[in-house]
């Protein structure tokens, strides 16, 4: 697969209160972004089990985005700090597995930041295109 026609697949785990609502605002404001992202709604970024992320990347997703409220704004007070610690460990795990740690993004996007959500997906899609397909995809492909 050449990089030019490669369309990365992103799985996004978004907290209900901030980033999911921010993604909705991008929609109501009709802000266009690439269709490469698939959103899974969770109640809080602190509920993202590392296994979800690993499963997504091992099964061939090119990138995973975790979206939560800005520090201090988590609806459950501290879920996003828990997510931040978890992501640091996950990145280390990815490195050990020989995967680029930049396939995992953690972003704080509030309910009013529809533009920021759209920009994040645009940037992430471009970054993953440059990085190329998840090597796991090639390894597993028959």
């Amino acid at each position, binding site marked *: 697969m050449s990089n030019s026609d490669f369309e990365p697949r992103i799985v996004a785990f978004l907290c209900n209160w901030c980033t999911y609502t921010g993604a909705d605002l991008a929609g109501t404001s009709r802000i266009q972004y690439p269709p490469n992202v*698939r959103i*899974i709604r969770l109640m809080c970024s602190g*509920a993202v089990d590392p296994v979800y992320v690993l499963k997504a990347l091992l099964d061939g997703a090119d990138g995973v985005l975790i979206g939560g409220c800005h520090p201090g704004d988590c*609806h459950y007070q501290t879920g996003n700090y*828990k997510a931040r610690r978890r992501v640091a460990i996950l990145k280390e795990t990815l490195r050990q597995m020989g995967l680029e740690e930049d396939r995992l993004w953690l972003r704080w996007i509030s309910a009013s930041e529809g533009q920021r959500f759209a920009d994040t997906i645009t940037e992430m899609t471009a970054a993953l295109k440059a990085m190329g397909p998840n090597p796991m995809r090639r390894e597993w492909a028959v």
Partner: protein
Amino acid sequence: MARTPKVGVYICHCGINIAHTVDVEEVAGFAGRLPHVAVARHYTYMCSDPGQNLIKQDIEELGLTHVVVAACSPLMHETTFRLACQEKGLNPYQFEMANIREQCSWVHAAGPETTEKAKQLVASGVSKAILLEPLAEREAEVTPAALVIGGGVAGIHAALDIADAGFRVVLVERGPALGGRAMQLHKTFPTLEPVAGLIAPLIARLLGHPRIEVLTEAEVTEVSGYYGNFEIEVAIRNPQSAICNLQVGAIIVATGYDLFDPTALPEFGYGQYPEVITGMEFERLAAGGEITVNGKTPQDVVFIHCVGSRDAHRALPYCSRVCCMVTARQAHEIQQRLPEANVTVLYMDVRAFGKGFEEFYDEVRREGVLYRRANPSEIIRRGDKLIVRAEDTLLGEAVELPADLVVLAVGMTPRADTEKLAALLRLSRSPDGFFMEAHPKLRPVDTATGGVFLAGCCQGPKDIPDTIAQARAAAAAAMVPLMRGKVKVEAAVAFVEEELCAGCGVCAELCTYGALALHPVRGVMTVNPVLCQGCGACAMACPSGAMNLHHFTFDQVMAQVDTLVGHLS
């Protein structure tokens, strides 16, 4: 155990909102071939009565066990469809929504990729749906009292309504006095009544009300608990300073607005020339007897509209809604009291949208106030006059207007400490910085935090009648739980599979709400479902996989991931 799932899938066109970029027929065909899907339909408006009836009929006739609607955001219509399911005896938690409007059709161009994405979102929803279990909706008792934060026009009205209905109200006001900004106004548009005269009797009634407690020079410092049972800490900062603890069932935020600071736009010379004042300062000038500037009666008076407003690059992007009419009222005041004066209003547009506004604006122009569509560029001093330099945008020429008094119609801004209160109450802010309502069209007084409501200018600029309308609406909304005495509590809470739990206690340490405790005899973790808020932090951390979150279980999320990426490798 559970019966084999039988899923109904419904793809909404949303008029053309979805159908113009997503091939809904193709998505429905695809959905119909997914495992366990008994029926897949598409329809113009799923949320309409006939749309909902499709679901109800299928539940009845086909015996559906789960329903998936692919339409707008669940934040918009999840409740609508849950109720439809419930009406036909299906547990509302066996319903799932796929967001193919806000997160698909509205943000991508028409084409096969957009339809493909919609298909996958539907498949992801179905794979979760078949694992959804019925949950019991439970209720908690409500503390029959309300907290009102802010004692302006909004807070006063909300407090009076709730107390008149028979509930205890605590009103917390930061300043030493009640009435807020309205008490600083000389008169109100378009009726020209003195404002203080309208507000003072309300304040008197508030202070004498047997069910209202007013705490002035006080601020909310801590909020815990949840809808129906909030625990509030208030710090009173006057000579008898004290800390009070309150329990309330609902909270109304009515903290009002600050004013745009025109020193941010140096061309207007505010702070440099004493003859340049803000609209709010004009109120004081007009209330104080004879109108003089530097000891003299002004001959030339210039009002400037939209100072700092509708200017996304340098100041506030939004319109403050009141300034056009405030300026008309103030120009009228000058023209009436100083008939010899030349009164000019420089405007971008005149927005006279309210009841009686256009008529008032016409009258002010008939009286002799000159309205000029102009773009002011700077104010300079020449002799004992100020000169307002502007471009007349109708004539397309530069003009210079002499002035003894310049009044800047500055807009409203969010309170400087909005961020702090937002964090305490877990509220969001809209892009303009004001507190954000739960939905811009459908839920203008609710917030995303259950039991917390918005009233007045803290939600965005508005005049006094709109402030009162929203305050009384917020009061009515807050009284629903107070009157019922009960609120629904989150059914999607954590649960433990006891046989897997090692009793390590890791989860309990992570829970911010103290909802988890080891069973004293069995040594396994137990969940207090009233305290649990359903954040899922415990489930994610459990090393044994024993802790789980209802409605977002490990298996349900893994099924979604599998559907979305499983086919890639």
